[in-house]
């Protein structure tokens, strides 16, 4: 447990992706089986056991510490798991420290009423770091900024093997993944490719710039809309149903309305959306449904989920991935006609003959639900990763507006010495109201200059945040804008980034909030 707890803390504090990969690789090198396999399962969301409720743990800690002191401590720390892990009175030598496998295996066969008793023993035996990892693990909230895909990437780098090969064999395996580690350490053959409801690595598109399109032959590409939802893979195999995000995280539990319609045997690729009466709702609505372990009946009603299908990978046992796109599309249409799944439709194909025609179509589309176009070669096989050439995404031009920098915050990792995150505002009367935050879109040289500007124009400091003079205009680009009750301005931008720094422009000439409000598409 000690190594696992150290890994968890390391992952929490390490901002860079490469740093996290290094930490996980180091852990896999230095930790024996089956411990590391259970850790991998914890990181990839592959563990199932009776979880503990935070309230039960709070009750438990109250039997051991003064409630008044607990209250003050919680007020100071601000997080239940962390407060309990820190305040738990140590009883050194009370019990043997459990290892991760023991925790997982014991909880798998413990009834919920007995969980606190078991947990109490472990809390006594562990140190604060170990207690924190244990509590995060058993309350099922191991949110440490690591996706299943990243954990598998770390495993792949450590085992010197392409991550997609790991994805291929993944669904035939269960924790603690002994055959997988044996294979990666060269001690055994590659595990057989499973037939289960696992994730198949997605095919991704490369971005297409306006200037590059002329070089492409319009006759061999097919076009469809690029929808503004999240990419999902629906897997229904042998009675098991899963919904995977593009990184292979199982997000099914948050979408029971989709799961219950998956009474077929296929693997499908599509876009998850929230729709009302056939109209796609703003992305913000979909967001209400994401990152949840469970959903209420009210949420299912208020934010009904929907999947717009665009590809088929398996039909029954048949792997269609080697077929060309156009053939797969025909198979998808035929399958859809027979299966008639609820809460799903087909993403329509957009016929065109010239790029000019398509560009017009793209520029005409202003709905929030459309991000641009997807171009797919008619003969492209479905291959994992992002091959250059067969698929392109051709995003429509962003919206822009001139805003005024209001606050600057330090960045993370390599940027921690720079004020690199900017909150910007638009005019409302003669007052600025914050409308968004951007931390990209500028070059390293520009960042140095921006950082210097922030330091020379600071009016107030709040810890890592500086308030600055209302003196610098930032032209920001964003994909769309929607209403938001979470923001004082009442609007929220999607993917804002700095397009240009207008050193030349007087702040009072920046745009007004009303301008932004007009861009909202209801």
């Amino acid at each position, binding site marked *: 447990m000690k190594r696992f707890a150290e890994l968890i803390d390391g992952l929490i504090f390490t901002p860079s992706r490469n740093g996290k990969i290094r930490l996980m690789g180091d852990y896999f090198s230095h930790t024996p089986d089956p411990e590391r396999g259970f850790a991998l399962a914890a990181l990839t969301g592959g563990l199932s056991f009776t979880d503990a409720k935070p309230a039960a743990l709070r009750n438990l800690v109250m039997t051991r510490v003064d409630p*008044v002191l607990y209250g003050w*401590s919680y007020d100071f720390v601000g997080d239940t798991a962390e407060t309990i892990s820190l305040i738990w009175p140590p009883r050194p030598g009370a019990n043997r420290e459990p290892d991760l496998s023991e925790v997982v295996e014991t909880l798998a066969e413990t009834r919920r009423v007995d969980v606190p008793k078991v947990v109490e023993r472990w809390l006594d035996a562990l140190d604060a770091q170990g207690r924190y990892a244990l509590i995060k693990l058993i309350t099922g909230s191991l949110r440490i900024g690591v996706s299943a895909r990243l954990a598998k990437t770390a495993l792949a780098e450590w085992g010197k093997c392409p991550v997609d090969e790991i994805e291929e064999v993944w669904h035939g395996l269960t924790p603690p993944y002994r055959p997988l580690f044996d294979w990666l350490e060269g001690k055994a053959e590659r595990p057989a490719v499973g037939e289960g409801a696992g994730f198949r690595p997605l095919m991704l598109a490369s971005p297409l710039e306006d200037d590059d399109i002329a070089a492409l032959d319009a006759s061999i590409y097919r076009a469809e809309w690029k929808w503004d939802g999240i990419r999902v893979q629906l897997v229904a195999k042998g009675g098991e149903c899963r919904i995977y995000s593009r990184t292979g995280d199982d997000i099914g539990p948050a979408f029971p309305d989709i799961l219950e319609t998956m009474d077929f045997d296929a693997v499908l690729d599509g876009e998850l959306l929230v729709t009302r009466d056939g109209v796609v709702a703003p992305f913000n609505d979909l967001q209400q449904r994401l990152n949840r372990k469970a959903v209420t009946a009210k949420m299912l009603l208020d934010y009904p989920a929907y999947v717009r299908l665009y590809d088929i990978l398996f039909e029954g046992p048949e792997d269609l991935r080697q077929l060309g796109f156009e053939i797969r599309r025909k198979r998808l249409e035929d399958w859809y006609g027979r299966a008639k799944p609820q809460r799903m439709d087909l993403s329509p194909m957009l016929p065109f003959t010239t790029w000019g025609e398509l560009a017009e179509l793209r520029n005409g589309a202003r709905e929030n639900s459309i991000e641009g176009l997807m171009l797919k070669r008619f003969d492209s096989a479905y291959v994992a990763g992002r091959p250059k050439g067969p698929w392109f995404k051709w995003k429509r031009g962003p919206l822009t507006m001139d805003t005024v920098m209001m606050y600057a915050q330090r960045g993370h990792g390599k940027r*921690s010495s720079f004020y690199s995150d900017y909150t910007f505002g638009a005019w409302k009367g003669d007052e600025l109201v914050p409308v968004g935050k951007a931390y990209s879109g500028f070059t390293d040289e520009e960042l140095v200059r921006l950082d210097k500007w922030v330091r020379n124009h600071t009016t107030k400091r709040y810890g890592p945040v500086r308030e600055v003079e209302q003196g610098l205009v930032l032209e920001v680009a964003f994909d769309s804008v929607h209403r938001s009750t979470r923001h004082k301005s009442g609007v929220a931008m999607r993917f804002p980034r700095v397009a240009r720094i207008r050193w030349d422009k007087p702040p009072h000439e920046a745009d007004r909030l009303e301008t932004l409000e007009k861009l909202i598409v209801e």
Partner: protein
Amino acid sequence: MVDITHMTHMTSTTPAAPSANVASASIPVPESWIKVLPQGLYVEPGDFFVDPVRPAARAVITHGHADHARPNNERVLATPDTLAIMRARYGDAAGASLQALPYGERLRIGEVNVTFVPAGHVLGSAQAVMEYRGCRIVASGDYKRRADATCAPFEPVPCDVFITEATFGLPVFRHPPDEGEIARLLHSVELFPERSHVVGAYALGKCQRVIALLRKAGYDKPIFLHGALIPLSNLYQELGVDLGDLRPATGLKKDAFVGQIVMAPPSAVADRWARRLPDPVVCMASGWMTVRQRAKQRGVELPLVISDHADWDELCQTIDDVGAPEIWVTHGREEALVHHATSRGIRARALAMVGFDEEGQGEMPEPPEVPVRGGSPTQGELL
């Protein structure tokens, strides 16, 4: 346990002290002779202040941290090492006349006997033991109980009133063993050989302690210092604390710091100064690093829970060890410690003293709530 009533060596400027064993009938109540004034803790029958926050005619200084040892007092009494630290920091402003009182020696000031006893906080740090007509009050300044190779260990003194700090006065603060924290630093150095490690540490005490711990763990490579840490580290070496090969972190090419450990003040580790270092892993040595959110807020990648203040268990242990029927809490998280003492039948009160660094000398100031959570909730990659 020190029994200072049996000390024989006396350095007196005034006639010998009366015996501590005078009739109990005449023992004064503590509040009648030690008072909290705006300038600080005032000892009336000696006419001096302990760690005054404003310049005073006579000051007894517990240790060299800037919130306890302030410049421009007229007459200053402190341990020899604390005076050396004050001279290094303030030069002539350290005080018009400086008088050294070694640990364990007694000095009579007015009607009060003063003795310094080690506090284990930083080099030279002392508890001021004050006796007046059979009543003994100990002002502990700042202190810790665990071993520290750079200073003399804390010694509990039985007393009538124990005046304590409470910087880490909540039961969530239990500092782990130093060795484990240093091992994590060394493991990270091994894991990221192409990067540098910059450790934020306060200039007096913490910096030297971290270096001493690294040396104890067998790390014998040169350790590089930010300019602000050099004078006091040199002074420590002059005063007999061996810190090994120390070098200034200036005038070198970026490459020179690859795989190296660099010490810097907390304010510099994530600021422009650190840009001279190759992809630094930002480390911070502080008791506040216990709380993850605090560490994250500061952009710390490797928090090291190493503190020069007593943690909760040490505070409680010390209250038991000194056996005082009454405690006064000067600064920090007073309410929890007062609550704890009261529940054990000990009279306790918070002195609500101002002017002390609530966060504990150079350790993290807490940033206030960010004023605006502007921007889109949907920025960045989802899932």
